[in-house]
């Protein structure tokens, strides 16, 4: 059975259709879920897509965290369901404390929109189970607040628990330890700044995001 993935739409999200199309092209069954929903319905995975949820007012993700759907997403994650936050979705996950640390403004105060080279650091997250550690990927980023930061104890924990999922090869934004993506202790909640859906078709210039999206679909299908 193909995996049913809920793609959450906040007011100001703008990558939900790209994510849905990419997942559908890989055999998934995406469904858009409005942020006001109290219940996710039957789903095998959740994506929080990129954009500017609630205008990014106060801080990116600060208001989205209190959208009604987030309580359902937290329950889904606590039950082991795969949850992936891409870009703004990563910011929402940190604000919701589903992932540690925070994303602050890029070093140099530049909005970055460019392909970046990444290395897969861990294969224990739902986004990388089918991708070998050490694999290099070229995937676009598109953000102003992508500079991952956390305290030293959290960084030690992320490293010792193998929770750094993706690393920049040429750090574009000042992220501590070149971090482009992390996961929770269980590996089922993942946040990353690069947009795999924008590297999912030869027409887009890269298909390097396909492996990540396939991993999500297979992790979700196992659950379903």
């Amino acid at each position: 059975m193909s995996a049913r993935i809920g793609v959450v739409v906040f007011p100001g999200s703008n990558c939900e259709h790209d994510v849905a199309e990419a997942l559908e092209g890989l055999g998934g069954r995406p469904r858009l879920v409005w942020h006001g929903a109290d219940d996710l319905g039957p789903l095998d995975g959740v994506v929080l897509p990129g954009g500017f949820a609630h205008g990014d007012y106060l801080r990116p993700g600060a208001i989205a965290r209190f959208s009604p759907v987030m309580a359902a997403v937290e329950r889904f994650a606590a039950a082991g369901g795969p949850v992936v936050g891409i870009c703004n979705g990563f910011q929402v996950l940190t604000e919701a404390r589903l992932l540690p640390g925070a994303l602050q403004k890029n070093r140099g105060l530049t909005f970055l929109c460019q392909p970046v080279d990444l290395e897969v650091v861990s294969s224990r997250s739902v986004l990388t189970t089918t991708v070998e550690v050490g694999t290099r990927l070229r995937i676009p980023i598109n953000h102003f607040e992508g500079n991952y930061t956390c305290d030293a104890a959290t960084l030690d924990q992320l490293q010792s628990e193998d929770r750094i999922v993706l690393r920049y090869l040429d750090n574009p934004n000042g992220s501590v330890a070149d971090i482009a993506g992390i996961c929770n202790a269980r590996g089922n909640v993942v946040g990353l700044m690069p947009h795999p859906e924008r590297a999912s078709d030869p027409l887009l210039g890269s298909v390097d995001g396909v492996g990540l999206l396939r991993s999500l679909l297979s992790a979700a299908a196992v659950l379903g």
Partner: protein
Amino acid sequence: MRYDVLVEVRLRPGIADPQGATIERALPALGFTSVRAVRTGKAIRFELDAPDEDAARAQVVELCERFLTNPVIEDATVSVEPAR
């Protein structure tokens, strides 16, 4: 009682402040050569009804912890005064 509240959100000490650094770098070009340690933040003002000032302050502190600041990178100073 009604209170005027001012919350100043700032980056914690040690957290890089690219906006502050950029402002600081721009100042010498304007002739301000003796400015240092520029840090940016934001000010949030609102009115609050509470039985007394302690209760008002307690609510504001909770509001800061849960919403107005991200404690990972930010903290806040709070001022609570009877509304004029």
